[in-house]
């Protein structure tokens, strides 16, 4: 027995020594990734393509408190870099718009020349000087074929419409109360053929609790489109009483019931889920995430792994060793409950993650995942996380007063992080961003979109960085297969085809699915062109589910090209 006791003691001391002097986590590190094996090339070419944009943001509070809040301004000014892809001149080439938030700073609209370069034309469209813009959403609210623009700002959202000279003019300012927001989604929730709005705010206040705050700016609000871009507040559909901090609203048919469920990425609390009922109203169903450990949702980006499965919903969260160890989540309905598989899929760790985007970068038939990250990059020696020790453990009352927070000033708060590029391989996702030297300057990424620069099926990536230069990554990856793209034109459904689901049946029997919700993700608008990588396979048939319930079929479409699908032109099912 004595021998056994001694043996146990020795085992314990060895274990303790290992704990102290050996990095256990090295054992679980994935081996170095060979970038060549993936043949992925995303090259930062903003100068080459004539894009030169630096996002600016400077807040000015009321005189009496501006000085007091000076130290926290880097925090308040950290949420507004966005990017929107839109074919603003309807020439078939994707353009993009990037607002600059600081009052008096110029927003940029880059028009695609079709020759691999852009020209800046914001002034021509009267989009250069906007009132502290945060995020723009271009959508056709009157179904006339011309995109209107919803602009969220540091105050109330504003709706703009093109005039006869092609310039955007303010037509409606949403009424108070409203606050700074990156969280909106535009979709036809009542399926009446007009695009409606759902908006929530983040605001410029601090939370009163890190995981269960209840002093946010409010809940999700619906504005119903009465036609001709007249919006009225619709309070009966979503009666949310809780005051939450919302960064993003995602729309997804999360239970494959042909409904448009809402997922609200919520900071300092549980993310919220609203299931759409058969009468198009919503019921809150957060309890399914009740034991979720991550309470800092930043964006919502759904994708379909394959046609037969339920969509997975990626929610970007904060991952910071020593402080926030849960990371991103990937929720999938299994027929009974939602299961998080981010860790198993290898996508849970990506720093303080913001924007997320599923796109097939190498056309191998598997959507890859790009995630922007980094909160505030200041002096790397001066870490705000460790400074939080002093004031973070406090009562709600104390914490909710921003004067009690330590000044952020020039500290780093999950800054200098490299954005992630998770390649989707048969063995799961692999982060190759370091191997391909993606985001080598480690900027503070926010909104994130893909754009087909040359209409050749190779998707380039644009990352809007907070108070930093915009990065344009040209996709120079040799294609691993075919691709196909679609542009939707609704007739009785909304003209932009938002909410439409496209199913591709491939010749090998596989099905690929995408649902067109361009405002999912964080502070970004995706292209209206819906892209599929196909790998070596041809498409046998395309099935389109329009939002009004019409299902149509197209047979043997041409590969490696974009197609316009007009509602009513296919074979009705």
């Amino acid at each position, binding site marked *: 027995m004595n021998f056994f006791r001694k043996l146990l003691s020795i085992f314990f001391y060895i274990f*303790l020594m290992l704990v102290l002097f050996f990095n256990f986590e090295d054992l679980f590190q994935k081996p170095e990734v060979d970038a060549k094996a993936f043949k992925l090339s995303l090259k930062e070419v903003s100068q080459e393509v004539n894009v030169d944009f630096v996002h600016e943001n400077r807040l000015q509070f009321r005189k009496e408190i501006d000085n007091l809040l000076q130290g926290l301004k880097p925090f308040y000014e950290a949420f507004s870099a966005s990017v929107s892809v839109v074919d603003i001149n309807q020439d078939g080439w994707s353009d993009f718009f990037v607002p600059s938030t600081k009052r008096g700073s110029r927003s940029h609209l880059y028009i695609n020349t079709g020759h691999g370069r852009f020209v800046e034309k914001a002034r021509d469209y009267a989009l250069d000087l906007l009132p502290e813009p945060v995020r723009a959403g271009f959508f056709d609210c009157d179904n006339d074929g011309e995109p209107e623009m919803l602009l969220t700002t540091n105050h109330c959202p504003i709706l703009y419409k093109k005039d006869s000279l092609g310039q955007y003019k303010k037509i409606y300012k949403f009424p108070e109360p409203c606050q700074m927001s990156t969280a909106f989604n535009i979709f036809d929730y009542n399926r009446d053929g007009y695009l409606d709005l759902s908006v929530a705010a983040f605001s410029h206040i601090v939370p009163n609790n890190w995981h269960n705050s209840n002093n946010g700016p409010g809940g999700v609000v619906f504005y119903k489109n009465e036609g001709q871009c007249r919006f009225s507040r619709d309070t009966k559909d979503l009666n949310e009483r809780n005051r939450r901090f919302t960064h993003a609203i995602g729309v997804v048919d999360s239970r494959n019931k042909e409904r448009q469920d809402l997922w609200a990425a919520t900071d300092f609390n549980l993310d919220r889920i609203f299931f759409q009922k058969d009468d198009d109203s919503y019921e809150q169903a957060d309890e399914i995430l009740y034991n979720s450990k991550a309470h800092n949702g930043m964006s919502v980006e759904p994708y379909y792994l394959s046609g037969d499965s339920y969509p997975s919903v990626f929610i970007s969260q904060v991952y910071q*060793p020593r402080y926030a*160890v849960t990371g991103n989540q990937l929720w999938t309905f299994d027929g009974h409950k939602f299961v998080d598989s981010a*860790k198993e899929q290898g996508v*849970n760790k990506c720093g303080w993650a913001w924007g997320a985007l599923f796109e097939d970068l190498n056309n191998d038939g598997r959507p890859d995942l790009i995630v922007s990250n980094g909160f505030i990059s200041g002096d790397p020696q001066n870490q705000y996380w460790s400074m939080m020790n002093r*004031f*973070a*453990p406090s*009562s*709600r009352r104390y914490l909710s007063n921003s004067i009690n927070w330590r000044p952020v000033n020039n500290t780093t708060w999950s800054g200098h992080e490299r954005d992630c590029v998770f390649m989707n391989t048969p063995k799961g996702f692999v982060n190759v961003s370091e191997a391909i030297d993606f985001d080598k300057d480690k900027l503070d990424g926010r909104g994130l979109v893909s754009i087909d620069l040359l209409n050749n099926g190779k998707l380039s990536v644009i990352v809007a960085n907070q108070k930093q230069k915009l990065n344009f990554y040209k996709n120079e990856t040799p294609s691993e297969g075919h691709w196909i793209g679609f542009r939707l034109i609704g007739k009785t459904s909304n003209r932009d085809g938002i909410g439409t689901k496209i199913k591709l049946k491939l010749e090998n029997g596989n099905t690929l699915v995408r649902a067109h919700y361009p405002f999912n993700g964080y502070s970004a608008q995706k292209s209206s062109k819906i892209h599929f990588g196909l790998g070596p396979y041809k498409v046998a048939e395309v099935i389109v589910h329009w939002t009004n319930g019409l299902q149509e079929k197209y047979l043997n479409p041409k590969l490696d090209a974009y197609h316009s699908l007009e509602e009513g032109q296919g074979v009705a099912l």
Partner: protein
Amino acid sequence: MKGISITIPKLSDPRFIFLMFTFCFLGYILFLPGYGRSASEYLFLMSLCLFFDFFLRGIMDGKWVFPLSGLVSAFGLFMICDVSSPIYYIPMAILAMGSKFFIKIKSRHIFNPTTFGVVFTSLAFPSAVSPTGLLRWDGNLFMSLFIFICGLLMVIKVNRWAVSASYYLTAVAVATPLSFFIHENPYTYLHSLMWEGIVVYTFFNLTDPKTSPHKLKYQLLYGASIAVLTQFFRTFDMRLPEHKALLIACFLYAAIDIYIRDKEKIEVWKVREVSIGGR
């Protein structure tokens, strides 16, 4: 056939007060959305701590004792640490309960098992274990008051009120002038002292009768030294300042006790023996 005799603490054991409080509080936090932990996770950690406490004592001390310490430690570990996967509860439980049986001076364990488990597991697995789980407390002043009252009952019962009082008074006395030097709002630390996590720490972790001093004067010194060390660590923005201070104080006290022999007069709580099996 010879049966096994299990030692069960009597109800007068002050750890039962802690357990009563534990179960009240456990119910509260499991229904608190921000806490983000499930009852099954707690049961898993509790089973591990009970297992290691029961069998390690059986093997190392030759006694089969109802693992009340394991129960108490499981709660402490569960409250303080966020883990990315429940698998990390295994090394946490091994370190916490192992410290009790393998790190001893004069046949007495020197570290509070919860504190030891928290500090060393978070050092070993920084990407997977985070003590910021502490921040999941609700920040509710009424809850702080409830914990304060429960804690007060317990420290009076175990005769360790001087440790808590000394800690509080010294913390205020040191933090207030210090705040001027480090440019901190002097109320910040006072608010932290009223926060639920610190109240639990002050009344339940600091006053572990097995690892804290017995005599009043040593208790006062012990509480004060932990408060000073905590302030020192806070000034340099170290993680887990309170727990690191407690570990150091426990070690120093155990080392000094070789000479001052304070622990020789330590109280022993009544137990009863129950035989299982045998004829």
